[in-house]
C-alpha cells in the first residue's frame, strides 16, 4: 500500500526523484568507473553528482570510504570536460576533511590554477586552498600573490577569499599578502574590491593606526562596491570609541545615509542608531528608517521596523515621529513586521494614539 502511494506521488512529481533511495555502498561502487580509460565524462559526472548529493544529505563516510572515493576521483583529471572538472573540485573540497593524503592533488590543482582557462583557475584556487596546510603554503605563495592581482575578477576574488580562509592555517597570511590585496582594492569589480577590503582589514586589525589610515583613505574615495561600503561603515563604527577623529567618522556614516544603494543607507542608519548617540544625533537616521517603513519592499520595511523597535528601548522620544508610519504597519501582511510595529508603539505611543 505504501509502495503504491509512493508510486502515485512520484507520478505526480513527474518521474520522482532520481536521487532518492540512493545507497551509499552502491554509489561508492559505481565510483570505480572513474578508473576506466578513457573517462566517460557524462557518466562520471552523474556518479560524482550522486556522491556529492549523498554528502549534502548528511550521509557519513568513513575515512577508508572517503579516501577510496577521493583517489578514484583524482583519475578524472585526465578528462578535459569542463563540468566534470568543476565537479571534481567540488568533490575535493567536500572530501578534503574526510579523506587521507588529500595533498596528492596539489600538483594537478596548481597546474589548473596557473593554466589558461579562467573557469578552471578560479575554482582550482579555491579547491587548492582547502587542502593546503602550513607546510604547503610556502610552495603556493607565489602563485597566490599573482592570482590576487590577476585581471580576471573571478580569479582575484577566489584568491582573496581563499587567503581569508587560510588564516586558520597560518595567522599571518593576510599580512604577507597585504600588498597584493592593496592593489586589488583599486579594482573596478565590486566583489574584488569588497574581498580585498576584507583581507586588508584582517591583515591590519590588530594595528589600530593602520586601520585608521585605511579607513581614512577609503572614506575620501568612498568605495564603489555597496558591500565594501557596508564593511567600511562597520570598520568606522569599531574605530569610533578609540580615536580622536570622531567627527570625521561620524560625518562619513551620515553621508552614507544618502548613498544610492539601499543596502548601504540601511547599514549607515543601523550603525548610527546603535552607536548609542544622543537623540539629536540620530535624527537623520530615524528619518531614513521612517522612509523605509513605507517602502514597497517587505525586507526593507522589516529591517526598518526591527531597528526602530530597538531604538525605542533607549530613545523612545526620537521614535515618536514615526508613530503614524508604525500604525500603518500594524496591519502589515507579514506578521513579524506587524508584531514589531505593535511592540514599538507600546513604548512610544501616547494616549492620543490609542483610539486610532
Amino acid at each position, binding site marked *: 500500500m505504501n509502495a503504491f502511494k509512493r508510486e502515485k506521488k512520484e507520478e505526480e*512529481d*513527474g*518521474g520522482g*526523484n*532520481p*536521487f532518492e533511495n540512493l545507497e551509499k555502498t552502491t554509489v561508492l561502487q559505481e565510483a570505480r568507473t572513474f578508473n576506466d580509460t578513457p573517462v566517460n565524462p*557524462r557518466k562520471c*559526472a552523474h556518479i*560524482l*553528482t550522486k556522491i*556529492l*548529493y549523498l554528502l*549534502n*544529505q*548528511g550521509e557519513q563516510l568513513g575515512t577508508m570510504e572517503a579516501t577510496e572515493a577521493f583517489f578514484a576521483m583524482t583519475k578524472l583529471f585526465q578528462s578535459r570536460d*569542463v*563540468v566534470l572538472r*568543476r*565537479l571534481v573540485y*567540488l568533490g575535493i573540497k567536500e572530501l578534503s576533511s574526510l579523506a587521507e593524503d588529500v595533498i596528492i592533488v596539489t600538483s594537478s590543482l596548481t597546474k589548473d590554477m596557473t593554466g589558461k582557462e579562467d*573557469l578552471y583557475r*578560479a*575554482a582550482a584556487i*579555491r579547491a587548492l586552498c582547502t587542502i593546503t596546510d602550513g607546510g604547503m603554503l610556502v610552495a603556493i605563495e607565489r602563485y597566490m600573490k599573482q592570482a590576487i592581482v590577476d585581471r580576471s575578477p*573571478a580569479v582575484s*576574488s577566489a584568491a582573496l*577569499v*581563499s587567503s*581569508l*580562509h587560510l588564516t586558520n592555517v597560518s595567522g599571518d597570511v593576510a599580512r604577507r599578502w597585504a600588498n597584493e590585496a592593496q592593489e586589488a582594492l583599486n579594482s573596478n569589480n565590486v*566583489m574584488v574590491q*569588497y*574581498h580585498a577590503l*576584507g583581507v586588508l*582589514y584582517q591583515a591590519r*586589525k590588530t594595528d589600530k593606526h593602520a586601520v585608521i589610515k585605511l579607513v581614512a583613505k577609503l572614506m575620501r574615495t568612498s568605495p564603489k562596491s555597496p*558591500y565594501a561600503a*557596508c*564593511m567600511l561603515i*562597520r*570598520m568606522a*563604527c*569599531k574605530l569610533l570609541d578609540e580615536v580622536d577623529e570622531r567627527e570625521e567618522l561620524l560625518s562619513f556614516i551620515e553621508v552614507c545615509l544618502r548613498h544610492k544603494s*539601499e*543596502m548601504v543607507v*540601511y*547599514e549607515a542608519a543601523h550603525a548610527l542608531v*546603535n552607536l*548609542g548617540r544622543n537623540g539629536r544625533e540620530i535624527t537623520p537616521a530615524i528619518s531614513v528608517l521612517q522612509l523605509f517603513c513605507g517602502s514597497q519592499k*517587505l*525586507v*526593507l520595511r*522589516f*529591517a526598518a521596523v526591527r531597528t526602530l523597535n*530597538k531604538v525605542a528601548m*533607549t530613545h523612545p522620544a526620537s521614535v515618536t515621529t514615526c508613530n503614524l508610519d508604525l500604525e500603518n504597519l500594524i496591519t502589515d*501582511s*507579514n*506578521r*513579524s513586521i506587524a508584531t514589531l510595529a505593535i511592540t514599538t508603539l507600546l513604548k512610544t505611543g501616547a494616549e492620543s494614539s490609542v483610539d486610532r
Partner: protein
Amino acid sequence: MDGQLLEPTLYTVKGMAILDNDGNRILAKYYDKNVFPTSKEQKTFEKNLFNKTHRANAEIIMLDGLTCVYRSNVDLFFYVMGSSHENELILMSVLNCLYDSVSQILRKNVEKRAVLDSLDIVMLAMDEICDGGIILDADPSSVVQRVALRTDDIPLGEQTVAQVLQSAKEQLKWSLLK
C-alpha cells in the same frame, strides 16, 4: 545596545538551502561550525523553518537566532540564513542571486524536477555564490557565466544540425546502455 554593532568581517552567510514542498532537503550548506554542527540539527532546523514559512509568503523570518530570508516557486523553497544582527538587505541580495541564477540555469523553469535534472550545475552555482560563508558573487549573470553550461544545453533552435544529431546519438546510446 552593545553587541549589536557587527564585527567587520566578510563571513556573512550562515547557510543556504533549497527545500522541496514537503520540507525535504534538496541541497543545503551550512558555513558556520557553531550553527547546527550535526546534520541532524540541520534537518530539524530545516523542518522547523519549512513549517513556519511554507504557507505565508512573507520573505523574511527570525528563527533560532538567525535571520532567514526566503522565496518560493511551484514546489521549491530557497533560503538564505545569516546572523540575527546581519544587514537583511545583504542577505536578500544573496537570496535573489541564488534564485535568479537557478532560474537562468533552468531557463525560468524553476521546479523540483528541473533542479534535480541539473543538480550538478545548481551545486556549482551555489558554490560560486558563497564560499565558506563569504559572498563570492552576487550577480546572477556572472554566476551563470562562471558555471560552464554544457554545450548541449543550448536551446534546440540555436544548435547546428550536427550538434543535434550528436546529442540525439548520445542519448540513444545512453538509453540502450541502461
